[in-house]
């Protein structure tokens, strides 16, 4: 499976049964469109694979900055179309949640939230419950993904890039989790945590904008243009 995520940093991963074979990630959060397709090309070449050897494409549907998010989604959808592969979508925050779940279990937390930068002094967040079964620890979503001020995040342990932005406004920011960006590799693992338990992945790849376009209908015609 080929996974892509561009909700925060841009990253690409190849995985088989949840085991990541190879991954690349950019540190630059502004070069999504430029970086994604070339990264896919290099990753496949490095593994000696072609698109025809893949079974599916998985993409993070956000939330995240719109332009980068769209670059990831249009890349995934187009690759899927060209290769004749199904394209699955998963909330990008679920990737970071999957990575964070074992850490939170160690700390004795059963509920937590992933918080990322939504700009405009707001955060994207989603609440999760830690579940443990025979196959290990995983994060199960406990709310829809949301956008809002830090004060709106539930009073649970918070992890992710948002913790570095507003540590004092979050009920409990877990230190040292600032670099817990959603990545394609964790997205692939989070997807495996679902499919290995008999769940099917969604083929909905609609972007989680969570905000409207901000365009305002002119209230009255402005008489003297600037």
């Amino acid at each position, binding site marked *: 499976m080929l996974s892509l995520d561009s909700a925060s940093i841009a990253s690409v991963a190849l995985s088989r049964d949840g085991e990541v074979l190879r991954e690349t990630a950019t540190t630059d959060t502004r070069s999504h469109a430029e970086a994604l397709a070339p990264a896919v090309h290099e990753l496949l070449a490095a593994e000696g694979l072609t698109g025809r050897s893949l079974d599916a494409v998985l993409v993070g549907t956000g939330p995240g900055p719109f332009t980068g998010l769209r670059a990831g989604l249009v890349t995934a959808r187009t690759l899927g179309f060209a290769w004749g592969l199904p394209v699955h979508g998963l909330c990008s925050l679920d990737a970071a949640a999957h990575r964070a779940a074992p850490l939170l279990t160690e700390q004795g937390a059963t509920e937590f939230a992933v918080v990322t930068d939504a700009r405009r002094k707001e955060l994207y967040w989603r609440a999760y419950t830690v579940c443990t079964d025979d196959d290990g620890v995983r994060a199960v979503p406990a709310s829809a993904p949301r956008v809002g001020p830090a004060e709106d995040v539930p009073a649970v342990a918070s992890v992710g890039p948002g913790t570095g932005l507003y540590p004092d406004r979050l009920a409990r920011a877990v230190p040292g989790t600032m670099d817990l960006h959603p990545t394609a590799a964790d997205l692939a693992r989070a997807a495996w945590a679902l499919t290995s338990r008999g769940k099917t992945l969604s083929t909905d790849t609609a972007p989680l904008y969570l905000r409207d376009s901000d365009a305002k209908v002119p209230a009255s015609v402005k008489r003297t*243009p600037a």
Partner: protein
Amino acid sequence: MNTAEPLVMGIESSCDETGVGIVRGTELLTNTVSSSMAEHVRFGGVIPEIASRAHLEAFVPAVRAALAEADVTLEQIDAIAVTSGPGLAGALMVGVAAAKALAVATGKPLYAINHLVAHVGVGLLDGTDELPDHLGALLVSGGHTEILAVHDIVGDVRLLGATIDDAAGEAYDKVARLLGLAYPGGPAIDAAATNGDPEAFRFPRGLTAGKYMGSADNPGPHRYDLSFSGLKTAVARVVEAFEAAGTPVPVADVAASFQESVVDVISRKTVLACTEHGITTLLMGGGVAANSRLRELVTARCAEHGIRVVVPPLSLCTDNGAMVAALGSRLVSSGVAPTGLSFTADPGLPVTTVSVPAGT
């Protein structure tokens, strides 16, 4: 690859049209366009974020439809061309990311090309293989307004003049709003002007003062440049004056006088640029090329100077993927190297960059 008559897919997303065109050599196979114009109507202008959202949803369906209509498969395509600028940053980004994905998935060469030069590329689709010598272009749309000299469409295109503020189509949209007319403003004002007196109001002609024009030997700083913001303000003052006096605004007369100012200055400056640069054929492009009065006056004034005017069908004047494919096809057949995957969308791409060189 068939380089004499390459099968090329062109992708366009610089403004509010998602265009996918396919050509074989100079033969147009399909020109699939999905427009988000209806979503911008209530705002009276193109909203970049709304246009970008629409590109994402329209892209794969547009490619699917284009392939079906041209009755070709992705594997058969020889090369892919995409608009990499100029245009709206977020809108360009969707097309560029998608085109790169198509290139990676198919292994086909990718050309990142200039939107403005692509408008001229339409001239390659009329069945003749060669563009006329001494070719110029007048591009007028909601997003841009330029006068170009096209010495060699794959390598030597120069910008002679351009608007220094609003695009002409943008001025039409804003004035249409002032007059309570529909969006887009071009057709609305054109229709309203039919019954109006173009000399009822004397609106300013931007950048026509001597200090901007200079002379042929000693050109001023804006000899072929255009400006529409002063005109828009002048129209607003007239409308305000009528409203302050409590009398109805003579919409037809204002529309006709505004339109006359726009087309007068565009056609005068275009003819001047053509005669002073030895241009003998002028290709019109952009959505405003459909404007009846603009076509009429440009054609008449060009005829006085022996300049032939070519106006492609409207579906090829407005932004579309076929023009991108047409230019891409010519780049392939001329042996120009593809751009590859490492370019970035460039909202301010200069017209002198016909296609982005590899490794940039």
